[in-house]
């Protein structure tokens, strides 16, 4: 506070509550780009994986999918690219190598993913 000086201890607590220390930035889904990394590189852990138990990825607080903490589309790629669970996507090696070629960013372009029929 610039104009008011807290004098007693209660005032100090109120001033601290009014100007909380800056909280850490949310870095989970941010791109690191060419700038300095937002967080140190760590092992790849798929976001929203039920095995990692991240509550909130299946359903939002209203039971829908509009307010998920990670977008549902994210796990589509995370599971078969970064992890060991390719069964839910088409066979990209032989049958459908281009099924995601029109989908540059899953969050934006997921509607462009091809429907594949075996």
């Amino acid at each position, binding site marked *: 506070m610039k*104009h*008011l000086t807290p*004098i007693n201890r209660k005032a100090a607590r109120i001033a601290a509550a009014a100007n909380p220390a800056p909280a850490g930035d949310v870095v989970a889904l941010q791109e690191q780009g060419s700038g300095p990394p937002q967080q140190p590189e760590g092992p790849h852990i798929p976001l929203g994986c039920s095995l990692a138990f991240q509550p909130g990825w299946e359903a939002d607080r209203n039971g829908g999918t509009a307010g998920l903490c990670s977008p549902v589309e994210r796990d589509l790629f995370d599971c078969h690219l970064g992890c060991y669970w390719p069964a839910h996507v088409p066979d990209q090696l032989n049958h459908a190598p281009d099924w995601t070629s029109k989908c540059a960013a899953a969050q934006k372009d997921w509607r462009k993913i091809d429907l594949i029929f075996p």
Partner: protein
Amino acid sequence: MTILRLGEHHAFEAADQRYLYLVPSAAVFALDAPAGALIDALSDDPVSRTDLIARVSPQFPETDLDALLTELEQIHAVRPAAEPAPEMPAIIPLTPVESFPLTTAVLNVTNQCNLSCGYCYEYSEDKIVDTTNGAQPKFMTDETARKSIDLLFRESGEVKVVHVSFFGGETLMNYPVLSRAVPYAKAQAEAHGKRVEFNLTTNATLLTTKMIEFLAEEDISVTVSIDGPRDMQNRFRVFHDGSGSYDVMLPRVRELLQRHRSRPIGARVTLTSQVNDILGIYQHLTEEIGFQEVGFAPVTTSPGRDHALDGSGFDQMVTQFKALADEFLRAALAGQHHGFSNVSETLGEIHKGVSKAYPCGAGLGLIGVATGGDIALCHRFAGSDEHNLGSVTEGLDRGAQQAFLERNHIAHKTDCHTCWARPLCSGGCYHEAHTRYGTTTHPNLHYCDWIREWTDICLRIYGEIAERSPRFLNRFDS
């Protein structure tokens, strides 16, 4: 367009600095000149935000008044006029009441006294309990004292330090029981991994060298009820035959002060319409007798009694309190001790920012135990069926405690809701209210003006010390 008004507060100045005491948060903030100007501009009527800034900006063209207003809103010194004041929440600290720990038990080890002070609330016309022919025994037994201590530890939850107070009657008339209760409580404290502290109130007329030795050895804080120089002490504090107690008490008090140095020995003075020379009494008790701390309280009595303080009596008291408080301030600025404990206690509460839902700890963390083992709100209600909270045998009646706390919460004292001094006063002493108005739930309206004036005096002293000698306030941090 937001219309703004001032939040509840009390403004004061000290050492050329403007301060706000905010209600009900009890926070003290110092204002700079632009903040003061904004407060002044809002002091008459609610004003819109834009108008307010336009009014003040010619004076302070360089200041970001919008940001300043935001600061004032954050501390609730300025509020939207349309928004009602936040409601006072009741019973927040007490859920569940079972987990609310006891910290202090006041043991009325006897209801008998070797003096018959004319103003005594325990024996005079205003008494609540019949201590002469009533149901309570005249002396507490060892067993009841031990059960009281057991109950205190049992109900003390996570609290690490508990307090046992000995009270009367004249406490020392049951010296044998209290002298055995002390080592018992210490053993219990060790068994529970806690610490126990003791204090005792006495008229000092029965003190012996052996007792003084015990009090010093066991580190027991002592408060002596004493009214001042011989003529004032003997005005009310007399033996049953009417003879004064000053000459009996004095050599014993001197011996106590000389021998017992591990704890400050306090004097507690009762002010009446006849005994009210506060400066003279203070000087006598500190300089001539040697007390380190002196506290004053007006007599508790129903109105119209001969010794009751009336309006002019209160005015006179405040004038003298002010003079003695100025002495305290001079000492504090010079880094010296001053024993006017009414000031130091209030400064301590201001420093912490205490905002009370209840005037004191009675029935909250503190209980009184009557001679027979009945639990009461505090020592002043000991033995009263109407204010019973169980017994040391049956246990603390948490239901009665809850009911009492719900009834007596500041939220129900509507007279207090417009008073800026309520964070510190919260309606005042239950016993005083019971004596004056017949119920503990009634705020003590007869001394509101006095409380506000006294709180203002202490706030100014606090502001002055904060500005000129802030390190002095560190002593109130613990």
